[in-house]
């Protein structure tokens, strides 16, 4: 297993490198954002440990550039800043896990193992319909290459609609799929999620078939079609 460690503090880098090597990983070290970006784009790493406060290019920007360049390597973020705004920014940029400094090395190793296990799991094929792409392995979706920011229920809905592209799916069927078996009264209605997903992927992607349900279709004109 090959790991990229991106950390600017020399002492912490030395320690982490030693701990990772002891745990049996091959470790490459990048002390700044530029080098990290280059290594991440060119070398096939199994995972990246990325510090956010980096010289030259900050961690979040490095991560965003990787994800835009279709680098899907799982990334564990390390940061001194534990505010939720920073966590949200990190995950929205495409992070897979987050660890706040100071931490115990054991915890870092445990998180790394979980991350690697997850990414090695079921290699379900990705779905693609007219610019809309969904990668079940990373549980991520993109529209025209732009990452979509979906909650788990929204993701489930989109996934189900994409798996049954072109078919009309009833509300009942969607409810059953979204909420498992113990669907309770207070749950959001399907309309709420359809509304949110439409807002994120474009309103014309999901068609309402009156009295029957919903259907996901590829837009008639690819990409260039103005959604008027």
């Amino acid at each position, binding site marked *: 297993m090959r790991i990229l460690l991106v950390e600017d*503090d020399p*002492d*912490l880098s030395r*320690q*982490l490198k*030693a*701990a990772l090597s002891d745990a049996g990983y091959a470790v490459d070290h990048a002390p700044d954002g530029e080098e990290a970006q280059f290594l991440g784009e060119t070398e096939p790493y199994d995972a990246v440990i990325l510090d956010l*406060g980096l010289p030259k290019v900050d961690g979040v920007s490095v991560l965003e550039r990787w994800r835009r360049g279709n680098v899907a390597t799982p990334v564990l973020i390390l940061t*001194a*800043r*534990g*505010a*939720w*705004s920073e*966590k*949200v920014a990190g*995950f*929205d940029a495409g*992070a*897979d*896990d*987050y660890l*706040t*400094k*100071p*931490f*115990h*090395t*054991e915890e870092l190793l445990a998180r790394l193992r*979980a991350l690697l296990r*997850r990414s090695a799991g079921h290699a379900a094929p990705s779905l693609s319909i007219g610019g809309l792409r969904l990668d079940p392995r990373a*549980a991520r979706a993109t529209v025209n290459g732009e990452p979509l*920011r*979906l*909650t*788990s*229920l929204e993701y489930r809905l989109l996934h189900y609609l994409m798996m049954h592209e072109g078919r009309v799916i009833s509300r009942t069927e969607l409810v059953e799929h979204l909420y498992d078996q113990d669907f*309770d009264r*207070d*749950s*959001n209605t399907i309309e*709420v999620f359809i509304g*949110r997903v439409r807002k994120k992927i474009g309103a014309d992607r999901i068609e309402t078939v009156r009295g029957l349900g919903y259907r996901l279709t590829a837009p008639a004109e690819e990409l260039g079609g103005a959604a008027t």
Partner: protein
Amino acid sequence: MTLEALSRPSLVRRLVILAAGWTLAVLLVSAIVLALLFQQAAIRRFDQGLAELIDNLTAGASIDDRGQVIAPALTDLRALRAYSGKYWQIAEPTPQGGIHVLVRSRSLWDSELEAPADIAAQLRSRPGQPVSYDTRDELGKPLRAMATQVKLPNRAAPVIFMAAEDRGPVDRDVRGFITATAVVFVLLGVGMVAAVVIQVRVGLNPLFALRREVASVRRGKAERVVRVYPTELAPLADELNALMAHNQEVVERQRTHVGNLAHALKTPLSVMLTEARQTKGSLAGVVEEQAEAMRQQVDHHLRRARAAARTQGSGERTPVAEVLDELSRTLERIFLDKGVVIDWDAPDDLYFLGERQDLLELAGNAMENAGKWCKAKVRIRTTPISPERFRLSIEDDGPGLTPEEREEVVRRGARLDESAPGSGLGLSIIDELARAYGGSLTLGPSRLGGLLVELDLPRAEA
């Protein structure tokens, strides 16, 4: 108003008392002067009547051969009826300084018009000039009298012509005038004092408006004083704005300093922790223990610094749905292995009155807590309570807390200053922040089976 409030100097009271005192004094003096003038005028008119009577007497009087004074036949009936209130008499001064009555009107019957003891001397010093005085007739009616000493042809000794009339009607007129004047002036005074009060309140209105604006800044409803104030107050409003901006800046700078310090400490702490773990011996144990304590202290004070800065309102508003969406995505990633599903709902036009970062901390910590304890499900709902407040409820399907445990958590939250940093539930942070926003945190049982956390938070207009 309490006694204390009354003893404090008040601008309104000072202005009202000054203006009212001045107004009332002017009114009082004018009323007295008016009454006096009226009385004088009335008496002058009255005296003219008496002078005419004396003129008629003088003109008509004649002296017979024996030197006796013969009074003219006057037609005024009142002078004929006994004690009618209109009298005349003709007298001569005696050598003793008194007067001796020669002829008198029928109305006097057998009485005489009283005169001051020194009347003869007075008349002698001013021959031909009338002398007026007040007296009473036999029945006790107040009289106004007039006497003139004249020398008649064919008579060596001077003759005094005297006339008097009941002054009761004049006195009644004067009293009536004074009463009417008093009533009118009292009404005028009340009206003017009321006008002064209104004028002062209206005049000072911008001051009250400024106070209200400053209060709303303090409560976080506005960022600065924005109304246009009169020239006298505008500099004060500007100074207040500058002061508030300065305060904000100082707080912001402090917060940044604390944040920087805390974050700068974290990497060295990581290094120390790691190094200590890899080393055997008692020193390593102490270092690890102390580094851990330092980490908790840093976290604790960092949070406190953030929460303390919240008392400074910024007037910012944050869309709730957006924040819940962001946090749901993030937390579902964090709890990906567990497969946590977050079901949130909030209207698009619901806004939190406060900084985005704070709503993220409030909801983020509560949601993370729920994610940690739930089996698989977290539900978030929003309920508007009033135009100014809304409730954010976060519940999970985990084991929850017993009523006793909930009480314990709330009790601990009530005295945050003493509570140890790094409390297990992370609710103290939420509680502290919610309080800084004038809100509250309540715990209860969830219908999903776990804990229900309810936050009462300020709401901004859509």
